[in-house]
């Protein structure tokens, strides 16, 4: 049994059922006059068939395998921390403003993923966020959110 294939096949099967179920709410039309639900219905059916084929293949023809989704321990922690930092960046971006949030994001990534010294992490994060701000906001006029930093913006 190829575990990773059977797990993912079940996910695709679930998604195909979801597409078919949600697609039912859309007008289907007829082949001569297909409506918005027509193509999602066909895709749902094909996805269902393909996921069943994958499931069958993984159950009956697959070789045995050692499968661990995550490397565990520190590796998992680093992935979680990176994702968490990015999520916090997304949540704080508009209320707090780009400059401060970018500093925090870079600082957390430099300080905690491949741990560096405090002073080094602080000045690199400050330099990177200021340069990014200057490049995108001042030169490329990207209109980054100012948030609480509005009064301080230049």
């Amino acid at each position, binding site marked *: 049994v190829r575990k990773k294939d059977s797990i993912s096949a079940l996910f695709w099967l679930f998604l195909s059922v979801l597409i078919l179920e949600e697609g039912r709410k*859309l007008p289907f039309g007829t082949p001569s006059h297909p409506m918005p639900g027509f193509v*999602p219905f066909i895709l749902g059916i094909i996805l269902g068939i393909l996921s069943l084929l994958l499931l069958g293949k993984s159950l009956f023809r697959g070789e045995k395998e050692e499968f661990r989704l995550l490397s565990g321990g520190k*590796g998992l922690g*680093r992935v979680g921390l990176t994702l968490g930092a*990015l999520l916090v960046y997304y949540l704080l971006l*508009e209320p707090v403003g780009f400059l401060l949030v970018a500093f925090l994001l870079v600082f957390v990534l430099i300080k905690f993923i491949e741990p560096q010294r405090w002073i080094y992490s602080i000045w690199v994060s400050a330099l990177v966020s200021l340069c990014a701000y200057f490049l995108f906001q001042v030169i490329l006029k990207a209109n980054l959110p100012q948030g609480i930093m509005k009064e301080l913006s230049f």
Partner: protein
Amino acid sequence: METLNNVLLGFSIVLQPNNLFFCFIGCVLGTLVGVLPGIGPIAAISLLLSTTFTMPPVTGLVMLAGIFYGAMYGGSTTSILVNIPGESASVVTTLDGYQMARQGRAGPALGISAIGSFIAGTFSVIMLMFCAPLLGKAALGMGPPEYFALMVLGLTTLTYFSKGSTLKALIMGIAGLFVACIGMDQISGDQRFTYGSTTLMDGIGLVPVSVGMFGIAEVLTNVEVILKQNVFETKIRNIWPSWKDWTKSRWAILRGSVIGFFIGILPGPSATLATFASYALEKRVSKYPEKFGTGIIEGIAGPESANNSAVGGAFIPFLSLGIPANITMALFFGALMIHGIQPGPLFISENPTIFWGLITSMYVGNLMLVILNLPLVGLWVKILKVPYHLLFPLILLFSVIGVYSLNNNSTEVLIALIFGFVGYLMRKFEYEAAPFLLAMVLGPMMENKFRQSLLISKGSFSIFYLRPISAILLIAALVILTTSFFRRAKPQIADN
């Protein structure tokens, strides 16, 4: 005469200071992302897509194209010096390139790859000049069923060449087509799978998805197992290949240029495929095939020429038919659409300044790249030594800024994060991102052509097999699909 006038028109556009400057920026950035591990041309083009909105379309495209072919040059530097291909089209170069570096011949290896790339790039630009307008004229006779069939063939070919299971690649393709359905239905205007979200009403954007899957997911994979690399310490002396090197390489460069161009036209990871084909051919025609892999210069000259030539080839279906054959072309497609320009058979006649400006910029850009890559190779090697703990926060920060500044919408940052995580899981479960993304781009067009075809035929599916071109294309897709299920071994081509 007409072509000459068009070429002159192209040069008059690209030699304008603004276009020249952005061509240079594109080449520098392309070489940079080609050199740096952990970020490739796809992520770089996705990130910079938003900056092209304020530029004239031709300037934006000139810059993006510079990134595309610049990465091919830069990729070879890491393959030769570190044994780590900067992107997949340089994998083959590691075989003989790294060995040459170990023997103290890194200079000629880098030199021949830059010279070969320049010759091949020039060859493919000239071929593109002649082929794209011809194909564009031929494509004027194609209707919705032919276009639909062509896109089916494109997606099927991509799944055939994808790494690992064809079944999984097909699933990714279907998932991509489904994601393309999210948003407003193009024909009726009905909302599909949007659940009241205003961001989703416009559909899920290509940029957040490609940044997520190719940028963020790559970083997540790398931070899980901290990336360590050692640059091979060697003095790079005399980058100019010797006369002996040159006589050995010249036919390899020529063969690589021709193979690369024609494989480049095919859908899928054509640049990568071209390098494998060129390496195999050089080995076959060589008098000493057993020595390949020990530092043979033809093993670098051929593939490095092929991957650059393939770049020109890949532009053909995109510029003349309006169908992107790979992810990079899909991003170009997005850039043009944002400017309200529809690539397709009429593109060249309606937008001669963009077409010829772009083509000639590739010629100028190739020249810039030789200058950038040969004398400045020491600088690129220094950049290679930038520690990953500095590099990955920069990649992530630029990713989230690039996605946000697209529409000044933070929800798109969330979408990029979600697809970054999905991309990370996909790598764990051995799924490829390329078929997903290409299907997502082709999806709206495919659905449109499919529904238009059924409207024309009054609901009869026979329209797809009674019209000869459509029938041939669909049969070809079916043959590819069937063979991919019944073969035992298949070429292992990475997608990014």
